[in-house]
C-alpha cells in the first residue's frame, strides 16, 4: 500500500488549441484539447494538466470553455493554469471544472496570492508552478526562477522560492527545467531532487522527458512524486500503458488499471 508515482500528460494551449514548441519558442499546433484529454483518460493517465501559455486577458473566456470541455472528458484530476492572478481568476477556473490551480508568474510578482488562494480553496487546490534555469555552470546546482513563459529572469533561487511557496500554502510544486524543456534530453534529476528534498509537499518533475528510463531516473534519483510530459505523449512516442508497465516492472509503485 504505497502512494503511486503519477504520470501526467500536459496540454499547453494558446487558450483554445494544444500547441508545442522548444523552450517555449516556435509554437506549432498539436491538436484539440478535449480529444487529447479523452485519449489520455482512457489510456491510464493519472492526472491531466492544461495550461494557457498565452494567458492573455481577452482569451480568458476561450480558455475557461476549453477547461469545461476537457473536464467533461475526465475521470481523473485536472490542474489548470495560466494567468491566474487573483482569487476571482482561480474561482472561475475551478468552477469550469479544474480540481487544482497552477500559479506561476503572478505568484512571483505577488507571493501573497498563494496564501489567498490556499485560504480560499485549500492547499490541495494550489499548485505552485516554477520554471527554473540552471545558473553558474553544470556543476553549480543552482537554478534561477524564470517567469513569463521563459522570457524574464527574476534573480530568485528556485529551491528557496519553492520552500517559500509551500510555507505560504502551496500544496504541490510543478517544477519545470527550462534547460530541458522540449529538448528530450531527460529530466533534470538534480533540480528535482534539490527541491523534493526540502519541501514537505509532492513535487511534479517536468521538462525533458524522452525515454522510459528518464521517468525511472526522475522517480529514483530525482525523488519526484509525479512526472509530467507533453510532446512524447502527443506524438505517440510512448504509449501510456507501456510506460507504466516499464516502471512497474522496475519496482516503481504505479497505478496500472484504469
Amino acid at each position, binding site marked *: 500500500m504505497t*502512494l503511486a508515482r*503519477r504520470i501526467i500528460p500536459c496540454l499547453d494551449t494558446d487558450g483554445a488549441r494544444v500547441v508545442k514548441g522548444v523552450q517555449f519558442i516556435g509554437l506549432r499546433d498539436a491538436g484539440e484539447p478535449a480529444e487529447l484529454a479523452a485519449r489520455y*483518460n482512457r489510456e491510464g493517465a493519472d492526472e491531466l494538466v492544461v495550461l494557457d501559455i498565452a494567458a492573455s486577458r481577452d482569451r480568458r473566456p476561450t480558455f475557461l470553455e476549453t477547461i469545461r470541455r476537457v473536464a*467533461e472528458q475526465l*475521470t481523473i*484530476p485536472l490542474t489548470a493554469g495560466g494567468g491566474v492572478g487573483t482569487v476571482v481568476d482561480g474561482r472561475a477556473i475551478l468552477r469550469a471544472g479544474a480540481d487544482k490551480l497552477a500559479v506561476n508568474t503572478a505568484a512571483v510578482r505577488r507571493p501573497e496570492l498563494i496564501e489567498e488562494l490556499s485560504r480560499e480553496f485549500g*492547499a490541495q487546490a494550489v499548485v505552485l508552478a516554477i520554471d527554473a534555469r540552471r545558473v553558474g555552470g553544470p556543476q553549480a546546482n543552482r537554478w534561477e526562477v524564470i517567469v513569463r513563459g521563459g522570457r524574464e529572469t527574476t534573480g530568485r533561487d528556485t529551491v528557496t522560492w519553492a520552500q517559500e511557496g509551500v510555507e505560504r500554502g502551496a500544496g504541490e510544486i510543478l517544477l519545470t527545467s527550462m534547460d530541458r524543456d522540449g529538448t528530450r534530453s531527460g529530466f533534470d534529476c538534480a533540480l528535482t531532487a534539490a527541491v523534493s528534498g526540502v519541501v514537505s509537499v509532492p513535487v511534479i518533475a517536468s521538462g525533458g522527458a524522452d525515454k522510459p528510463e528518464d521517468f525511472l531516473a526522475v522517480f529514483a534519483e530525482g525523488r519526484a512524486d509525479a512526472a509530467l510530459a507533453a510532446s512524447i505523449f502527443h506524438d505517440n512516442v510512448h504509449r501510456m500503458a507501456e510506460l507504466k508497465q516499464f516502471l512497474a516492472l522496475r519496482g516503481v509503485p504505479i*497505478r496500472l488499471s484504469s
Partner: protein
Amino acid sequence: MNAVEVTLIDYGAGNLSSVERALRLLGAETRRADAPAVLASSRAIVLPGVGHFGALMRTLEERNLLAPLREAIRGGVPFLGICLGLQALYDSSEEDLSHSGLGILPGSVQPLPKTAKLPHMGWNQLRRLRPGILLRDVSENAYFYFAHSYAAIGADSAAVAVCDHGVPFVAALEQKSVFAVQFHPEKSGAAGAKVLANFVEFARRESLAGDPVK
C-alpha cells in the same frame, strides 16, 4: 430498472459538478439541494466536499441545511459523504474546532502526521477490514485518488477499509445506510465509478423496499 434520484448537497464545493457528471453517467438522476425543503423528500443524499471543514459546516448552517441533513441521515436516507463529506460525519475536526460536525459518528478528525508528504495527494490502495457494499466487485489492488491533509485516524467500528499515509486512516466506512469515502470516487477512474454505482444501487433497492406500491 427505476432510476433513483440522488440529491447533491450544494454548498459551493468545487467537485460538485464532477460528482454530478459521474452519477449521471451511471444512469442516476441528480438534483442539487441548496435549500432545506429539497432535503426532506430525498431518497439518496451525496455530500461532496473539498476544502476547509469550518467553511463546510458554516455554509451548511447558513443555508439551513445542517439540521435537515442530520435528520435525514439519522432517519435512514442513504447517504454518501465524499472526502470532506466523510470528515463532516464526525463530532468535530481539529482543522476547525469552532464548528461542530454532524455528529453521526463519534470522535474527532485529525491532521495526518508531518512525517509523510502533505497533502496526501495522489493514487493509493486500500486495505479491506470487512466486506461491505461500497467496495463490492472492486479489485483489492485498485487505486483511488486522494487529496487531503486531515483524516479519521485509526479505524473506528464503521470503517470497511483503511489507507496508509504515515498512519492508517479510514478510507471507506459504512454504518447501516451511512456511507463515506475519504478518496474522490469521481476522480478515480473505473474503480471510483464502481463505488458510486454500488451506492446508487443500494439507494435504489432501499427506495423500492420503502415503497409498498412497487
